[in-house]
C-alpha cells in the first residue's frame, strides 16, 4: 500500500475541482479539491478512474508512481451541447439539418483584422477565398456549397446575434461561435435570403463571477508570401529590351537603347546615377502589425457584461496603403425576474484606411512597369520624382510618388446593435422580440494632386517630362450611408408529453434598407496641401446624389418533434415579400422538412457495437430557399435624367431609358436535398460527419442573358436558367490524451461540382463560356500546342490568327479548317477547385500548447495576363526565365516564345488568350502555427496576475504550389465563373507574430 496524489486539469490548464477518482474494481475513491488535487491509498497495480459530468472518463495505472497528473478532455458531441440555429438554439444531437460550427477560440489561433478570413478551412461546406492580403481590403468571398447563382448575389446571409449584420466589422476576439446553415432544412427559416446559406455569428457574453480584465497584445512581422523573380540588372534589361524591339521589326533607333546608354550602365562607377534599381524592394516592405485588445467581463445578480476594446494598426506591405481598426463590443444581459430576460449586443467599429486611388493592383502593375535604370527620386538629391530614364520609355506612373501624394482616405464608421426581450409567458412558452439597427457611414476623400515627374538625368532647371497620372485632377469627396433596421417577434413553445417532445416556433420579421450617396467634386486647387472642397475653385465643381431603398416582410415558423430522442422530425417554412418584385409577384413561400434517426439509441444497437461505434445518426432533408439579391428596381421602366446637352449657351437637361425593364420577375429559388451521417467511435473520441447534397437553383434572376446590343438598352433582369451544385463534405475530429499530452486532430474535405443545367443559348464572355452541361463560366481558350521552332514548322501548320514567325506560339486548329480563329477555342477544365481540404492538429503538454493548421485547394486553374507575366508590358521588367530561355534563332528549343515589343505582332501573339497562360493554382499551405506557454499560476499570483500567456504564431509560413511567382490563393471571379485576369494581385501576407495575454 502506498499513497498516490496528483492534480487534475483541463486542456487549457485550468484546475478541475470535484472530479471523481475511483479505484477500478474496488469500492474506494475520492474527489479532487478546489485546486484539483487528490490523494488516495492504493496498491501498485491499481487502476484509477477519473470522471466528471461533461468530461471524457479517463483511466490510469498507478504502476508504483507517487504522483499521477491527469488532463481531462471535455466531452465533444455530448448530450446537452447546444448549437445556434435560426431564431434559436438546438441540441446538437437533435439536429436534422446540415450545420457546421466552430468556436471563436479555435479560429482566433490565427491573427487577423478581418474575422471573415479566419473561417477558412474551418467548416466543411463553407468555402472562404481571400482575394488579397491588402490591409483593410482583404476582399474575402464566402461561398456555401458552390456557386449558387450567377445573376443574384451568391453570398451567404450573415446574421450577428440574431440580426442581419456584418462579420467584417466585428472584432475577431469578440466572437464566441460561428455556425453555417448549409441545407434547406436548416436555412429555410431565413427563406428570403438563405439560398446561398446562412452564417450565424454569436458574440461573447459575460459570465457571472468576479470581474475579469484581460489585455492582449500582438505584434506581427509581416511580409509578402511570395514575389516573382524579376531581372533588375539594368544592362540585362536594356539588352533584352533591344532584342524585343528587333524581334518585332522596330527599326527606329530612337525607340531603343543605344550602345552608348548600355555602356554607361555597364561601365558605371556611380551606381547612384546608373543603378540596378529594384522596384519591388521600393514598394514592398516588411512591416509590423500591432493588435491590442482590452476586455472586461463578469457579472452578478442576474446581470452579466462583456466589453472588448480592440485596436489594430496595420501598415500594409505595399507603401501607401494602411489600415487602422478601432472596435468596441458591448454585450449586456440582464435578468429582470424569473420570467423576463433582457439584453443587447452592440458593435461600434471605426476603420481608417488609406490606399492609392486605383488600388493595390494598379500600384503593383505600375511597379512592374518601371525599369531598373532609375529609382523613384532623381539621383541629384532634389527629391523630384522620376518619370523614366530616357524619353522613349513609357512606364506607368511612379508608384512611390503615388504612395506619397495621391492616396484615398476612407473613414468608415459602423454600428450594429440589437436589443432583445425574452418573456416566459407560461411553462414552455416563450415570447422573444428583438430589434436591431445597422448603420454605416463612410467618407471618402480622393485627392488627385498635380505632381511633376522628371527624366532621371534632368538638370536642375529642366522642365518636368510629365505629370503623375492620377486619373484626373482635384478632390472628390463621397459620403455613403446605409440605414438598416430589422425587427422580429416570435413565440416558442417547448413541451414534452411522455416520450414525445414538441417544439413550435412562429414569428414575423420586417426589414428596411436605405442607402444614400452624396458626392462633391472640385477640380482646381491652389496647391496640393489643402484637400478640402472649399479650398478649390468653385468654377469647376460637380455633385451627385443617389438614394435607394428596399424592404422585406416575412412570416416564419418551425416545428420540431422527436420520439424518445431517437426519431427526429423538423419542418421549417417562411413566407416572404420583397419590394424588388412587382405587386402580384412579391410574395413567395419557402418550405422544408428534415428527419433524423439516432440508430445508436435503439435497443437493437448492442453494447458491443457501441463500444466501437459509439454514435450513429442518419439525417435527410429537402426544402426550397429564395433569393432576391438583385438591383433594387428591376421591374420599373425608368429614365435616367442625369445627362445634359448644350444646344445654346446653357445646358438642356436630358433623359432617356437605359435599361430594359421586365415587369414579370419573381423570386429565384433553390432546392436542396441533403443526406447526412454522424458517427462517433470509441466513446466519441473520433467523430465523423458526412454530408451529400444536391442543390439546384432555378428561375435564376439574371441580366446576363442573350440580349443583342442592337436593341440599344442594357439587358433586362429575367427569371431564367438553372444551376446545380452537387457535392460531399466530410469532417473528422479526434481527441485523445496520452498522460499529460492532450491531442486533438481534425480534418475537413469538401468537393463540389457545379453544372449549368439550363441557360439557353450559350454565352462566351471573354475567356470563358457558359454552356449547358459545363461548370458555370468554364475556360474557353485557344489551345497552345508549342512554339514554332522554324519556318518549316510554320509552313506545315494551319494559318495562325497573327501571321506566324519562328518563335511565335502555335495554336491548335481544332475544327480542321486549316485556319486558327476564334472558332478553334476549346473548353478547358479548371474553373473551380476539385476539392478543398484542411487539417488541424493541436496538442498541449503541461503549460505548453501547439497548433498547426494546413489548408489546401486542388484543381483550380487561373488564366493570368499582362504585367509581370508578359515581358515588357508598358516597358516593364520580366522574370528571369524570359532572359534565360526564350526563343531566339540560337536557342530554337527554348521553353518560352520569342520576346516582342509592346503593341507589335510578336507581343500580341504571346498575349493571345490561350492555354499558355493558364496556370495551375492548386496549393497546400501551412496556414498557421501557434506555440503558446501559460505561465504557472503559482508564479503569477504573487504579482497579482491570474493568468499570463505568451505565444508565437506564424501565418502562411509555407506554400506548396506550381503557380509561378505570386500567390496562388486569389479572389474569385466577379462574374462567378473561372478566374481570368491580371497576374498582379496583392499577395497574401506571411506573418511572424509574437503575442501575450494577461488576465487580472
Amino acid at each position, binding site marked *: 500500500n502506498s499513497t498516490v496524489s496528483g492534480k487534475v486539469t483541463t486542456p487549457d490548464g485550468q484546475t478541475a475541482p470535484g472530479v471523481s477518482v475511483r479505484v477500478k474494481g474496488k469500492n474506494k475513491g475520492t474527489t479532487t479539491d478546489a485546486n484539483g488535487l487528490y490523494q488516495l491509498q492504493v496498491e501498485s497495480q491499481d487502476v484509477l478512474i477519473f470522471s466528471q459530468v461533461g468530461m471524457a472518463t479517463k483511466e490510469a495505472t498507478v504502476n508504483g508512481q507517487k504522483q499521477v497528473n491527469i488532463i481531462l478532455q471535455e466531452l465533444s458531441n455530448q448530450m446537452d451541447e447546444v448549437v445556434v440555429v435560426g431564431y434559436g438554439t438546438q441540441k446538437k444531437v437533435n439536429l436534422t439539418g446540415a450545420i457546421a460550427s466552430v468556436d471563436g477560440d479555435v479560429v482566433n489561433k490565427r491573427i487577423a483584422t478581418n474575422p471573415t478570413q479566419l473561417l477558412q478551412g474551418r467548416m466543411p461546406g463553407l468555402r472562404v477565398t481571400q482575394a488579397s492580403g491588402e490591409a483593410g481590403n482583404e476582399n474575402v468571398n464566402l461561398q456555401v456549397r458552390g456557386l449558387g447563382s450567377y445573376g443574384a448575389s451568391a453570398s451567404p446571409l450573415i446574421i450577428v446575434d440574431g440580426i442581419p449584420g456584418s462579420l467584417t466589422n466585428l472584432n475577431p476576439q469578440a466572437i464566441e461561435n460561428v455556425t453555417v446553415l448549409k441545407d434547406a432544412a436548416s436555412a429555410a427559416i431565413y427563406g428570403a435570403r438563405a439560398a446561398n446559406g446562412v452564417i450565424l455569428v454569436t458574440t461573447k457574453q459575460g459570465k457571472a463571477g468576479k470581474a475579469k480584465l484581460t489585455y492582449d497584445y500582438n505584434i506581427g512581422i509581416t511580409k509578402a508570401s511570395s514575389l516573382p523573380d524579376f531581372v533588375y540588372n539594368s544592362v540585362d534589361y536594356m539588352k533584352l529590351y533591344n532584342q524585343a524591339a528587333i524581334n518585332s521589326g522596330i527599326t527606329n533607333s530612337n525607340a531603343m537603347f543605344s550602345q552608348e546608354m548600355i555602356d554607361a550602365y555597364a561601365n558605371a562607377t556611380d551606381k547612384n546615377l546608373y543603378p540596378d534599381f529594384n522596384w519591388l524592394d521600393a514598394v514592398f516592405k516588411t512591416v509590423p502589425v500591432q493588435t491590442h485588445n482590452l476586455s472586461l467581463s463578469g457579472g452578478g445578480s442576474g446581470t452579466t457584461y462583456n466589453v472588448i476594446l480592440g485596436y489594430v494598426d496595420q501598415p500594409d506591405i505595399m507603401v501607401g496603403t494602411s489600415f487602422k481598426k478601432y472596435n468596441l463590443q458591448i454585450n449586456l444581459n440582464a435578468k429582470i425576474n424569473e420570467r423576463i430576460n433582457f439584453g443587447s449586443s452592440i458593435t461600434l467599429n471605426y476603420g481608417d484606411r488609406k490606399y492609392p486611388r486605383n488600388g493595390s493592383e494598379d500600384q503593383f502593375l505600375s511597379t512592374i512597369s518601371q525599369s531598373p535604370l532609375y529609382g523613384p527620386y532623381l539621383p541629384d538629391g532634389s527629391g523630384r520624382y522620376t518619370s523614366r530614364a530616357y524619353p522613349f520609355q513609357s512606364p506607368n506612373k511612379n508608384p512611390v510618388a503615388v504612395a506619397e501624394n495621391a492616396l484615398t482616405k476612407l473613414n468608415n464608421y459602423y454600428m450594429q446593435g440589437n436589443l432583445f426581450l425574452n418573456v416566459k409567458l407560461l411553462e414552455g412558452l416563450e415570447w422573444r422580440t428583438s430589434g436591431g439597427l445597422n448603420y454605416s457611414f463612410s467618407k471618402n476623400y480622393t485627392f488627385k494632386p498635380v505632381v511633376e515627374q522628371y527624366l532621371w538625368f534632368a538638370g536642375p532647371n529642366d522642365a518636368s517630362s510629365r505629370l503623375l497620372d492620377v486619373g484626373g485632377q482635384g478632390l472628390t469627396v463621397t459620403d455613403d450611408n446605409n440605414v438598416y433596421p430589422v425587427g422580429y417577434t416570435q413565440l416558442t413553445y417547448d413541451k414534452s408529453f411522455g416520450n414525445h417532445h414538441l417544439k413550435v416556433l412562429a414569428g414575423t420579421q420586417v426589414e428596411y434598407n436605405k442607402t444614400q450617396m452624396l458626392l462633391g467634386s472640385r477640380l482646381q486647387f491652389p496647391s496640393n496641401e489643402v484637400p478640402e472642397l472649399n479650398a478649390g475653385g468653385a468654377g469647376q465643381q460637380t455633385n451627385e446624389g443617389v438614394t435607394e431603398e428596399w424592404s422585406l416582410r416575412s412570416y416564419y415558423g418551425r416545428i420540431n418533434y422527436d420520439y424518445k430522442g431517437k426519431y427526429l422530425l423538423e419542418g421549417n417554412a417562411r413566407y416572404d415579400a420583397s419590394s424588388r418584385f412587382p405587386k402580384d409577384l412579391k410574395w413567395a413561400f419557402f418550405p422544408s422538412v428534415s428527419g433524423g434517426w439516432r440508430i445508436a439509441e435503439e435497443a437493437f444497437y448492442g453494447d458491443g457495437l457501441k463500444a466501437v461505434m459509439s454514435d450513429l445518426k442518419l439525417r435527410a432533408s429537402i426544402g426550397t430557399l429564395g433569393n432576391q439579391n438583385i438591383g433594387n428596381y428591376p421591374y420599373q421602366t425608368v429614365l435616367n435624367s442625369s445627362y445634359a446637352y448644350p444646344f445654346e449657351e446653357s*445646358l438642356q437637361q436630358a433623359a432617356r431609358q437605359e435599361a430594359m425593364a421586365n415587369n414579370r420577375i419573381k423570386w429565384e429559388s433553390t432546392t436542396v436535398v441533403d443526406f447526412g451521417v454522424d458517427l462517433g467511435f470509441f466513446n466519441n473520441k473520433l467523430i465523423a460527419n458526412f454530408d451529400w447534397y444536391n442543390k439546384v437553383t432555378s428561375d435564376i434572376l439574371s441580366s446576363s442573358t442573350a440580349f*443583342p446590343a442592337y436593341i440599344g438598352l442594357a439587358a433586362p433582369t429575367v427569371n431564367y436558367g438553372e444551376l446545380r451544385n452537387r457535392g460531399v463534405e466530410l469532417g473528422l475530429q479526434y481527441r485523445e490524451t496520452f498522460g499529460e499530452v492532450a491531442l486533438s486532430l481534425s480534418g475537413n474535405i469538401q468537393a463540389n461540382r457545379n453544372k449549368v443545367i439550363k441557360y439557353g443559348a450559350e454565352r462566351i464572355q471573354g475567356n470563358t463560356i457558359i454552356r449547358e452541361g459545363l461548370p458555370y463560366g468554364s475556360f474557353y481558350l485557344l489551345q497552345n500546342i508549342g512554339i514554332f521552332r522554324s519556318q518549316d514548322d510554320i509552313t506545315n501548320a494551319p494559318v495562325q490568327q497573327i501571321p506566324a514567325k519562328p518563335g511565335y506560339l502555335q495554336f491548335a486548329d481544332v475544327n480542321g479548317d486549316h485556319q486558327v480563329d476564334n472558332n478553334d477555342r476549346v473548353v478547358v477544365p479548371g474553373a473551380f477547385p476539385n476539392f478543398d481540404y484542411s487539417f488541424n492538429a493541436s496538442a498541449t503538454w503541461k503549460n505548453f500548447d501547439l497548433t498547426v493548421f494546413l489548408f489546401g485547394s486542388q484543381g483550380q486553374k487561373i488564366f493570368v495576363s499582362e504585367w509581370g507575366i508578359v515581358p515588357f508590358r508598358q516597358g516593364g521588367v520580366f522574370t528571369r526565365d524570359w532572359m534565360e530561355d526564350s526563343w531566339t534563332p540560337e536557342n530554337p528549343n527554348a521553353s518560352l516564345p520569342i520576346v516582342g515589343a509592346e503593341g507589335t505582332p510578336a507581343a500580341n501573339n504571346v498575349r493571345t488568350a490561350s492555354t499558355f497562360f493558364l496556370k495551375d493554382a492548386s496549393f497546400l499551405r501551412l496556414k498557421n502555427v501557434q506555440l503558446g506557454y501559460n505561465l504557472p499560476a503559482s508564479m503569477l499570483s504573487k504579482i497579482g496576475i491570474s493568468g499570463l500567456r505568451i505565444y508565437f504564431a506564424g501565418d502562411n509560413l509555407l506554400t506548396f504550389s506550381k503557380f509561378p511567382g505570386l500567390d496562388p490563393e486569389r479572389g474569385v471571379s466577379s462574374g462567378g465563373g473561372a478566374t481570368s485576369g491580371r497576374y498582379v494581385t496583392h499577395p497574401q501576407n506571411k506573418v511572424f507574430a509574437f503575442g501575450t495575454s494577461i488576465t487580472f
Partner: protein
Amino acid sequence: ALSLNSCTKDLLEKDPTDKISEQNFWKTKSDADLALAGCYEFLSRGYNATSSTAARGGWGGASMLWDGLSDDAFVPSSSNSFNVISRSGITPTTGGMQTEGYEISYQAIGACNRLLANIDKIATLSEEQRNIYKGEARFIRAHYYFLLTRLYGDVPLTLQPLGLDEASAMLARTPKAAIISAILEDLDFAIEHLPNTSYSGHAVRGSALGYKVKVLLTNKQWDAAANTAQIIIDEKVFSIYQGGYRNLFRKPGQNNNPEIMFSAKFLPPNMYSPADMMYSYLKAVQPLYYLVDSYTCTDGKPITESPLYDPSNPYENRDPRLKASIIYEGVWRGTDASSAFDPVFENVLGGYLPRKYINESKWPTSYATQSDQDWVFLRYADVLLMYAEAKNESSGPDQTIIDALNQVRSRSDVNMPLFNLNDSYSREELREVIRQERRVELALEGQRYFDLKRWGVIKEVMDTIQDPDGAARLFQARDTLWPVPQSEVDIARSLGNEGYKQTPGF
C-alpha cells in the same frame, strides 16, 4: 388588420427616388425637350476626363483619333483600340471603338426610336412642333446609321423601339443598300421639316442637306450628291467663314459661325470636351510627315517642285493651313517660350502634334483641362468640296467645280493661288486636285479615313505608310469593313438567328 395591411403595402412599394418613371413621361413639351437632348447627348460623349485616361476616344471631342487610322496621323498608345486597328490588328474581340462603334450607335438609335414612337402622345404639341422634334431625332438616327454602315457595312435595321419579344432579338444584318435608303428617308424628312436657318446647336435643314450629300457621295450617287449640294449653295444660308481658319475650331469663333452646319457641342464645366487634354497633354494623336509634306508651298506647287521650298526651313512659304493645323519643333503652344514644343523630350517620335482644335489659352494642359471647343462634323467648305467631287465624277470638269474649290482656297487668311479651268484639267487630274484640297482643308477633322475608304484607295495608300517607331502599317483588305462585336455573333448563333453572321473575313 387594416392598418397593418396598409403599412405592409407602403413598406413593400419602393420606386426609384432619383430617376423618372416612364409612366409619368411623354406628357409635356418639357418631356419632349428632355428626350431630344437625350438623343443629342450621344454626340458629345465617349470620353470622361475625370475618371479615365487615354484608352478611349473617337467620339465627340475625341473624334480626331479617326485620323490615326489614315496616312495623316498616328495613335501611339498600344492600349488604344485605334492603334491596334491602324496596324491591321482588328479582330472581333479588339474592343474599344470596334465594339463601341456598334453599341453606342445603337443606344443612340434606340433613344431616337423611342422619341419617334412616343412624341405623338404629347397632345400639347402642334403637328408642326412635333415634326421638328421628329426631324431632329431622325437626323440623329441617320447620323448613327451612317456611321454604322461606314464601319460595319450591313447591320440590323430598326426604326421602331425594340422590346423583350423574340422578334426583337432575331434581327438580321440588313443589306447596306436598305439602310442607306432609310437614312435618306430620315434626312429627307428632316430637310422638309427642319427650319431653314443657320446652325446654333439644333440640327437645321442645312445640316440634313449636307449629310445627305455626304451619304450620297459615299455611295457614289454622284448626280444626286451634286444636285443636293447645289441646293445648299443656292440657298445661301451658309458661307465660308472669314474670321480665320483656326477659329473654326475654337470658341468664340465657333459661336454663330456661318460655316458650321453641324457639330457636337460642349459647355464646361459640366459638359466639357477633352480636346486640349487629349491632343496636347496626352498626345493621343500625332500627325505624320506624310500629311505635313502634302501641304503645298504658297505658289500652289508641291514641295518637290516648288522653288519656294527650303528643306532647312521647311515650314516657311507653305499653305497657311499647315501652321494652323500642325505643331512642329519650336512652336509655342502657350504664350511664351516655355511652351515651345520639343519632340525628343516629349517622346513624340514623329515630331508633330495637332494644332487644330487646340486652344493656347489652356496651356499648360493637364488632366484637369476642360475644353469648350465644339467638334465640327459638317461645315460649308466640306459641302463645297463634296460638290466639286460629285460634279467632277458625274459630268467632268467645269467652272462650277473650280469656283467651289476657289471659294475654299480664297478664305481670307488662307488665300492660296486660285485654280483656273483654262489649265485644262482632265477628270482624273481634277479628281486628284479635289482630293488633295480635301486632305489639307479637312486635315485632322476625322474625315480622311472614311475618304480613303470610299475612294477605294485605302490599301494602296496605307501599305506604303510607316509609323514613327518604324513599324509598317499594312492594310488587310478585309479591314475595310470591321467585325461586329464577337458577343453579338455569339448571341445570334445561340438564338438561332441565321440572318446574323460575322462580317466576311473575320
